[in-house]
């Protein structure tokens, strides 16, 4: 309905573009501020962390620090709003937590993995998710580990293959289901298309599936509710939306899939103000903005009388091409609806404004 005229649908506006002199892997808004952090790799092989402030239509560099190892990923998910410490994972398998006011020495550091930390996520901070602050890291070494910044040296939980099992490269991790102070789930995606859902309350594998293609990114639509939906993006341009409300004993969770990008879908990020809207970022420099529509009934009885979920549908709200190079990271501002930062392999970071999100 709202799609009838081109002007009534959301527009994705390239507001600010900034070229960088390093390869940027991740960019994240600092909560409750107009600043964002860029993480990456200097050509000389060191890591870099930059803070930019959005001001008068420009991104102004506020701070830059160089670190020994290239930094792959970061999250503010497990910090309090007062502290706003960023947790990062680097090429050497280290998990560091930095106070951005004094970023010279980490406030927490641990050799988390034997190889590169591909992905990181946090929960329990920023008022998102009741319960303890926890950080999760996924690495090429095949393990997924849960950390509590109050505990030095060892993880609180370790999801690793037993000896004899092949170690798969874990590309992505995400928290979810943190709707009270006990329940919490971790989802991990692997290079072979495996998606695994771990239940931290029971310390068990709750569900697994395979989407036949490397899983580049997984994200729950919201971390701090009863798990509702999960989006998993894949290497060959497809992504899947799982309805996480009904878990059939054999069929698991139902999903709907969509192929939009002609190449890898690197990232998916749900709009913090509306969990049913999400953006995917692709390997050919394009962004797709989607909306999930629920079916009339979210579950039904199967032939045996058991409950089985019903998937909804996905509609495209808008798409734009920003570059010829992949967009590797994307982050919505948690504070200002429609504001988002994305960075790509074209060594630039962009601030985008997406309009009319409140009317879709």
């Amino acid at each position: 309905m709202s799609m009838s005229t081109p002007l009534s649908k959301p527009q994705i506006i390239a507001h600010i573009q900034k070229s960088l002199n390093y390869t940027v892997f991740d960019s994240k808004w600092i909560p409750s501020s107009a600043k964002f952090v860029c993480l990456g790799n200097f050509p000389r092989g060191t890591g870099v962390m930059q803070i930019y402030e959005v001001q008068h239509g420009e991104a102004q560099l506020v701070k830059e620090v160089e670190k020994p190892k290239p930094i792959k990923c970061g999250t503010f998910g497990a910090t309090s709003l007062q502290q706003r410490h960023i947790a990062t994972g680097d090429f050497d398998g280290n998990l560091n937590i930095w106070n951005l006011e004094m970023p010279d020495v980490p406030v927490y550091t641990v050799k988390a993995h034997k190889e590169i930390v591909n992905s990181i996520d946090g929960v329990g901070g920023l008022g998102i998710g009741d319960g303890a602050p926890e950080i999760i890291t996924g690495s090429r070494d095949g393990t997924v580990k849960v950390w509590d910044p109050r505990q030095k040296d060892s993880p609180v939980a370790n999801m690793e293959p037993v000896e004899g099992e092949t170690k798969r490269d874990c590309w992505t991790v995400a928290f979810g289901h943190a709707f009270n102070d006990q329940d919490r789930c971790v989802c991990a995606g692997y290079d072979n298309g495996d998606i695994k859902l771990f239940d931290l309350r029971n310390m068990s594998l709750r569900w697994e599936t395979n989407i036949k293609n490397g899983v580049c990114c997984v994200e729950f639509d919201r971390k701090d509710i009863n798990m509702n939906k999960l989006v998993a993006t894949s290497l060959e341009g497809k992504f899947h939306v799982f309805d996480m409300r009904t878990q059939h004993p054999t069929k698991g969770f139902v999903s709907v899939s969509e192929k939009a990008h002609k190449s890898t879908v690197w990232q998916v990020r749900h709009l913090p103000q509306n969990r049913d809207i999400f953006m995917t970022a692709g390997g050919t420099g394009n962004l797709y903005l989607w909306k999930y529509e629920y079916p009339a009934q979210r579950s039904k009885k199967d032939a045996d009388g058991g409950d089985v979920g019903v998937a909804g549908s996905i509609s495209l709200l808008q798409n734009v091409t920003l570059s010829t190079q992949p967009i590797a990271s994307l982050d919505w501002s948690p504070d200002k609806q429609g504001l988002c930062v994305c960075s790509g392999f074209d060594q630039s970071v962009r601030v985008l404004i997406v309009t009319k999100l409140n009317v879709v």
Partner: protein
Amino acid sequence: MSADELFSCHSQPTTVDYSGKVPVEHLDYDYIEKCKDVKYLEKILRVLRSGDEGIYPHLIQFCESHLEKLDPKSRALRQENPAATAASLPKEEWTQIVDELTTWQEEAKKTDNSLKKGTIYDAVVKETIPPVRGSNCFVPVSQNSVPNGRRNLSKCALPRDYREWDKFDVEKECAKIDENVVNTDPPAILNIGYPKIKTKVDVSLLPQQEKLLLANREKDKGNEAFRAKDYGEAVAYYSRSLSIIPTVAAYNNRAQAQINLKNWHNAMKDCQRALELEAGNMKALLRRATVYNHMGNFQLAADDLRMVLRDKPHNATATQLLSEVEKKLSESRPEQQCKGKKILIQEVEEEDDNSNNETTAQQTTCPVQPSQPVGGEESSATPAERGDMGNAQKKPHGRGDGGPHSESNNSHHGHWRGKGGSSDKYKVTQESKEKVANGSSKRGSTASVQGDQSGSGKGTPVGGNAAETVNLDAPCGALPPPLSRLKNEGNLLFKNGQFADALEKYSQAIQGYTDTGLDSPEDLCILYSNRAACYLKDGNSQDCIQDCTRALELQPFSLKPLLRRAMAYESLERYQKAYVDYKTVLQIDISVQAAHDSVNRITRLLIEQDGTEWREKLPDIPLVPLSAQQHRREEPPSTEVLQARAEKAARDAERKAQIHFSALKQDGNDFVKKGLYQDALGKYTECLKLKPEECAIYTNRALCYLKLERFTEAKQDCDAALKLEPTNKKAFYRRALANKGLKDYLACSSDLQEVLQQDPNVQEAEKELEEVTVLLRQSLANASPAKPRKTVPITEVEDDEAITAVPNSESSYRGENISINLQPTNAYDFGQSLNAARCSRNTAACAELLASTAPEMLPQYLSSQLDGHTISFIMEALDSHLLEKDPTLVYQHLNHLHTADRFSVVLMLLEKDERHHMTQLFEHLSVVESTEFTKNDVQNLANKYI
């Protein structure tokens, strides 16, 4: 789509060849137009776009538009777009976006900086989070890979986790075995766990900006759940949001979710609360109308819908619902309304007798003046308006408007009290109304006068408008002219004290009513109620009771018949029944002082008569439905209500103003608007010479003084205003500003807290408080550490009307003891007693007061009183007097005290020695051995305080 495919298979069997090449003849307008196969069209489009068969832009366009018609979401229609830029948007839109962004950036910068400063909460917050989950707990990454030996290797720090982990595995193994034997699957896991969601969020330790953030986020979550039709979950998240900060939007949304769950009563409550926060809120009215409609209360539904339509005449939902409701109303009226059984929710505020005449009288005598929000530059609410606002709160139906009602409206509900009724020929003086309405029994009069005044403006000069031009033919509700005349004659006779004659008229009217077969229970109820008043005056209690009972059958829970019946019962010495009726009255309107008095008196009589078990012999006291309760809270109207009223009144002001209000005040207000504060000051001073009891003038003059930076005088005026209206928010707010100007930050902060206490959404006050808190800290830091404690109560004393500080000596408080009511039954009594005790630093009296107060009532009683000194004083009293006697009670009090409103803020403002008192108390308490609580409990509790 499959159907389409099938169709095309039959009609064009040769063409459906998805793998092969598209024949050139298919690249044709006619063919494309006829083709219904989306997939094949997509293929054609691809061929056309590729240009392999030549480039035909128009054909491509045609094909696209045809495809869009068949399948607007077809992927073939997706095209790569460049990112939009400023130029691709209309200019206004872009300007708006940029403006919003700039505003946000500035705000974000502020929040950012203030977050950086305030790290004091962190330590406390940390206490509340659960412990570390464990250490190195191993979780298998595949379901079949759990080697036995591996499990033992895992080291879980917490035994709980270990057990759970252990247990889980066993179950799983068992399940596997089961699966092999019997082929039954475990049931699906449904993640619908909203009962597991806590509906309250403990944010007492968080600063305001974080609370706002959180409240918004929880509301968003509620909205999402709502959109996904998880209404139960939506309710849970709205409740969380409301537990952080109550907002109209969240109440409205929760009301809608409750409506969808068919929880009518909860929905009703939420609508009421929303309307309390913002009278006349469209959504709340609309939703309440829906609830009324479902509860079978069509009359009230119609009222609400008319309110909505008056503001938004084109609201389709309201129009539709109204026609539906009106239809039901006309159908169901005879059965439902006469029996009065289904209509539990009765509009209690409706007035007897000449209520709709009152409205017109009121209009001519005391027009409403615009009032401004707290701290606004402009001024003034007349007392008349205040009375009116009281009314608005009692009647949360949001009758905040002044639009004229058509006669047809009035005929539906004679009690409608809109100002601006169209028949202003009929005028009854204030005095006469009161008499007529309440049968001039002393006790009755207090009660009914309150009822009346709520509509007609307290403090309007009574004698000023003694226009005795009574039009006896004025219409009364739905009564036909002859009956109206009878009733009006009855009213007039009653007023003149000719009760027997009045009785006769009312009887005739009732007879006439029955004869005509009219259908208007409201009017009949009023007639009975009025005749009952005559009977009561004549001492005929039996008949009075009978008439009241009839009236109550017609309109259950009407205030006046209940009150009159209670009095009649009392005079017949049927105390039990009288007691029940008075209690019911109090449920409807807690502010009826006469009922309070009578209940106290009767209680004594009943104890004498029936002994200590007197309560058991009572008949059941009916539970008054929420919507029939006028005074669910005793608080004065909130600023939102005032504000909403004021805004509406302002709209009508031009039309309505100038009739009555004194020219002086108007001039003063005008000067204020122009910024000529010196001139306004003169006008107001003249005003006060004429009417020294006008609260609004004092607050207005205070504003002028503030603007002229004459803070001492401003403060004096606020004090005077507060003497007249002890809860006047403007006065508090302006005194806060005055105190700030006088650099008395403590007094300023306590005044601001008072404002916020009464209404947490006054943002100016919020801001000021933040600012002042900083100033206060600075000033405390600069001041000598051992500041004498006594200075505090003395500054406080100025708030309290006549109480002067008494030195803290044993002898003096003994004498004072007598004047302190140690058995408070409501917040007001409690507040008075506590103030009295505190002003004399009489901790023993305070201890006694606390001993006679139920701990769970404490937060409620304290609601409007809480400040640092009160807390500290209570601590002192508990520590020095109550701890030895009854440590359990102390514990319970402490356990409830911290749930009081704004406790956390007050806590932050405590001074050093005040904190010391608190620590001491907890130390003492933790030493006490008790079966009721453990040391741990005390420690946990202490964490909430220290």
